[in-house]
């Protein structure tokens, strides 16, 4: 399936990319995180378990076991700090 993936705030800066389109062979948000983490460097540091992050699918925050629909907009970002 094809996914549109967005990164925000610290993650956008550390990854050096704001958005990308990915061909994805997995099923869940956790599968996508594993693919990204395998890129190494900042990807492994941020998504490898040491730091908290959130995943939203089609603009709703989901748990990592959530299934990803084809053409989904998936966003990965740090815990929010507004207000």
């Amino acid at each position, binding site marked *: 399936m094809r996914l549109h993936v967005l990164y925000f705030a610290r993650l956008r800066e550390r990854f050096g990319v704001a958005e990308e389109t990915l061909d994805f062979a997995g099923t869940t948000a956790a599968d996508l995180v594993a693919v990204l983490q395998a890129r190494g460097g900042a990807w492994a540091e941020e998504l490898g378990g040491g730091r908290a992050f959130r995943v939203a699918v089609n*603009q*709703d925050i989901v748990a990592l076991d959530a299934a990803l629909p084809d053409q989904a907009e998936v966003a990965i970002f*740090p815990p*929010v700090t507004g*207000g």
Partner: protein
Amino acid sequence: MRIVVQSDAFDLGAEVDAMRQGRTDIGAIASFVGLARDMNDGSGVAAMTLEHYPGMTEKALARLVDAAASRWTLLDVTVIHRVGRLLPGDPIVLVAVAASHRGEAFAACEFIMDYLKTQAPFWKKEETPAGDRWVEARASDDAAAARWNQP
């Protein structure tokens, strides 16, 4: 219901007046204004920049207001959150809740702010003497939101 994400400043008085305009059923309006501080985590803050997730932000704020409206009887709600670069003393966020009585207005205003802090996709980056830094989420904010789920 009025939900706005904007870079411009807002005027609390004008927003409250707009809520009251032409109606006589409102008995209470509770409001909260959050401001940018000049100090955080032990260092001076010269400015902050607020980033958000356009599209999701508005949805997340609408969901918070809907959750409050399903919990209390509310007559109107305004939420305004600024984005972009803000200086110490600048207003960041406004929540105003109109209800028949003060109890609902106070409670819903606090509920919306507590959930906004943990659910709405905004991020703050501070300019400090040691360089720029992203603000880290606080466990105390999660605890503040979680207490609304207790029986």
